[in-house]
């Protein structure tokens, strides 16, 4: 689910993020946070769909990362995932980039 990515932790969940799988994503994200990694890139390209259970985990992680002065950037949302973010009004809440490269630039630029 994760890979070494320099000083930015990359998390790339796959398949469905729903009530049954959101706990695994939460453990992964908060595992990084617990290890002191507060710069996180979540690549959603392999995600088939996401329900509100997954959105809540991402919101919770974003809040926790923000409180520690870090940054969480989402990237590579497929159309079904993007639609759920748009419908729930969360697209403006998260930092979202089209590609992983653009997301990495976001960290490099520090903006």
């Amino acid at each position: 689910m994760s890979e070494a990515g320099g000083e930015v932790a990359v998390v790339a969940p796959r398949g469905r993020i729903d009530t049954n799988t959101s706990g695994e994503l939460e453990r992964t994200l908060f595992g990084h946070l617990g290890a002191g990694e507060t710069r996180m890139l979540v690549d959603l390209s392999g995600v088939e769909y996401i329900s509100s259970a997954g959105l809540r985990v991402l919101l919770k992680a974003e809040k926790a990362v923000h409180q520690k002065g870090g940054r969480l950037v989402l990237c590579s949302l497929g159309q079904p995932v993007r639609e759920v973010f748009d419908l729930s009004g969360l697209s403006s809440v998260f930092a979202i980039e089209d590609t992983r490269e653009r997301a990495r630039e976001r960290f490099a630029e520090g903006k």
Partner: protein
Amino acid sequence: MEAVRTLVVPASRPGMRRVAKDFDAFGTARALPPEVVRAVQVALDEMLSNIVRHGHGERGEGHQIEVSFRLDEGVLEVTIEDDAPPFDPLAASPPDTTGDLASRPEGGLGILLTRKLMDEVEYERAGDRNRVVLRKRTGS
């Protein structure tokens, strides 16, 4: 090929997984568009998790949920029935999706998403059961 598929599962997370798997099979057998299957899977996750969370607690403890899928003239109808105390998920107030992050509630998104992803969502108390009906046009 059956026009209606009905299954009864425990009101629990394993029960939810069985419904998701069954609906995948129904969608494949009826050649439903992938975007319709994904939207309905999200709505099922929202509605069933509501029942599991509010209805009977995490364990289900002997309670069951009956789910049926029906495809008729380009409309997919999903009916979900459970024997929990009366609970209308649609009566919950919609979450504020315009506030800033700090003031944004983390719950309540599921109902909002379900309403937006489906064409119709209905609730009724039928005897001693809650019944939620979801309808989605399949575009065919």
